[in-house]
């Protein structure tokens, strides 16, 4: 094969490999993603059996611990719509009432049943100051 054609062939192979990889990237990410949702979104339009990533603030005085199972309510950042959450697994150290959290799971009946270990608590920026103001 003459070098010119060989180079073109190599370029073609490399480009098609790149396109294939990009396609796989896009396809897998969309099919594996979980949609972010707020409590009011979830109450308005949750499809059963679909998993969501619920974000919001932990309602004050709603946290209850029953053995390994933690239950609490998450409300909208601005607003009062709230969803009860049942969670098992590791509770992050900064988890507190009033803090912003993210948890993945699905709505079963009226309760949001979370996946194990999926709870994330956001670090409040200047955490002690935040507490003073509440």
């Amino acid at each position, binding site marked *: 094969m003459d070098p010119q054609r060989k180079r073109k062939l190599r370029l073609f192979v490399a480009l098609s490999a790149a396109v294939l990889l990009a396609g796989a*990237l896009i396809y*897998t990410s969309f099919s594996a993603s979980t949609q972010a949702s707020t409590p009011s979104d979830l109450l308005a339009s949750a499809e059963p059996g679909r998993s969501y990533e619920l974000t919001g603030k932990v309602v004050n005085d709603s946290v209850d611990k029953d053995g390994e199972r933690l239950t609490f309510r998450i409300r909208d950042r601005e607003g009062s719509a709230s969803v009860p959450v049942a969670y098992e697994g590791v*509770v992050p150290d900064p988890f507190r009432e009033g803090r912003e959290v993210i948890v993945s799971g699905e709505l079963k009946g009226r309760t949001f049943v979370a996946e194990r270990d999926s709870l994330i608590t956001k*670090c409040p*920026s*200047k*955490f002690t100051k935040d507490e003073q103001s509440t």
Partner: protein
Amino acid sequence: MAGVGSACLLVGLLTAAYAAGASLYGARSSSRAAVVSGRRAIYCLAALLIGATAILQSAFLRSDFSYKLVADGSSTDTPTFYKVTAMWATQDGSLLLWALLMSIFSSAVLFLTRRSLRDIAPYATAVLAVVAGFFLMLMVGWENPFTTLANPPVEGAGLNPLLRHPAMMIHPPMLYTGYVGFSIPFAFAIGALITRHTGADWIRATRRFALVAWMFLGTGIMLGALWSYAELGWGGYWAWDPVENASLMPWLTGTAFIHSIMVQEKRGMLKVWNVSLVIATFVLALLGTFLVRSGILDSIHAFGASTIGTQFLTFIGIVIVGSTALVISRLDSLRSKARLDSLLSREAFFLANNLVLVGLCVVIFWGTFFPLISEALNGQEASVGPPWFNRLATPLALVLVALAAIGPAVPWRRASRVGALRVFKLPLAVLALTLATLLALTNSAERPAALLMFCLVALVLAVVVQELVRGTLARRTITGDPLPRALAQLVARNRRRYGGYLVHAGIAVLFLGVAASSAFQEQRDVRVSPGDTFEAGGYRITYERATASLGGDRAGTGAPISFGAVLTARRGDERYTLHPSRNFYPSRDASNGAIGRFFEGEATSEVDVRWGLRRDLWAAVRPDIGALEPAIREADAKFSKSADDVQAIVIAAIVDRYRTNSPPANFRVIDSPLVSWIWIGGAIVLLGALIAIWPSPETRLRRVTSIYAARLGKELSRA
């Protein structure tokens, strides 16, 4: 003194502006004096920032709460080590750290290159001054670390308890040193592009800085992983969190860069690729800093909304647009001198390694920014989790380790098939032997990806050992030295090469730990009472008794209250005792009650790990203090107005009640095989990088000779 600090920053900003202006003027008008003055302005900047940092540090050490930063991030009872390091736990403080490191690095590189690269260096000085100026502008305009409080509090808020771990305190300066370090090759690349001197000179001048940056960034990432494993109560070392990803991305492109520049040095190829890589690395480093601080992506580390997000994005945008335009306008002078001769050559394997590294970076970038991408595409914010990252990263990591084995043993330009066969005969035999042994003796066949990784790790190690042995034997034949001396001389005289091999071996060992611990770890979450026994992995574990201490927690973080457990673990004849605990820091919220606030504040897991070469036993406890609540409430009702010492006695009594009347506690226990090899591998990489960076006596001699040769040449051309 705060005024002096602010003044240092303001004067620093003006100095940076002057440095940029003087260097550019000097380069344009060929005024040597202006160039020298611009360079000296950078030294001044470093001095100013060292002064500013010293003022801030002394405020932290004196616990001067009239500084807002000190009041927010430190307290009188914060241990001294954490007082010193509290500076970079805040946004303003980390900006100052960035600028400080930036000015020191810039001064070092400009001092070292003061007699060479006379055309490129002024432009590089200007770029460095602009980057430092940007950080100074952020501090002067928006986030002044020297902000003072009109009514200073009596006591500070204290350092966030989660950050009270030695690894966490060394981790940010390491990462920042890495980020900042990559601005050096970036600045010189821009200088080379502007002056169209796109040969390998700028690479030779900054190569060592790129390696130093790469080493620090890698060490920072490792320390972050270690902190996650040993401090956070979940037991993993990597979670594909946006902030972790943000530090990994520039490291990946940086790794690609330090490989591909060798191709440019040896063969004059890949010039466009190299400048693009260094630009990408620098942009990703800026992006990393921005991600940690902006809170645009959901992350454990996102420190809430920041005030400087827009400024950061604008600056990143300017850097991307400016440098891309520059590269495009210089495409004609970036043509390669040579072409790829054969796919079976070292440059071809370097190119392949680059593509895989950049591919991995693209995957991580896509996944990290997927919430933003998906919102832009279909209006729904969605995210991908760790399983997605693992699925895509695993095959790429396998290819990468395979390339790390093949690359070093293939010659430049073209390898013959016979030669390749001879080189790889022995390593391939080692690989086959490893495979057979693992299949026969272990259950690793259940996890094909892990099994494949083990075999490839064996291949890398075999190639590295073979290269070392061959080199040593050859050297002995030539010099007649005894073996150990021949080996030492071999490495000392080819530091870059053998340091690089050692890095490959370290990476292989690291991946051995990653593959084994992620495929074969066993985790158990239980809730048990004292006296109960449970199984976890291969261990039988007994919750012997609860512990409770007042003051003086085991890790020395300054927590007043610590509840814990004593566990005994048995496995065959082995018998260990573990002391996991949980520290409670008082809340400053008065509504929790005078006594209750000691139990309602921040709490952090103090994990206990039995480290081992074969396996780690990791344990965390979450004491259930709900049982103490009635007592706490009663105490609050009765003693809220009492004197401090009475309250202290009451708290001591409640704490003691936990020990004597222990409720059930939740435990997480992980039996993780070979996980220690991750840290050992990381240490080997660090050692290899140090060997590669250390200048050898010969290169120093060569440099001096070349300077003389250049001077002689100049004299001759004038004559």
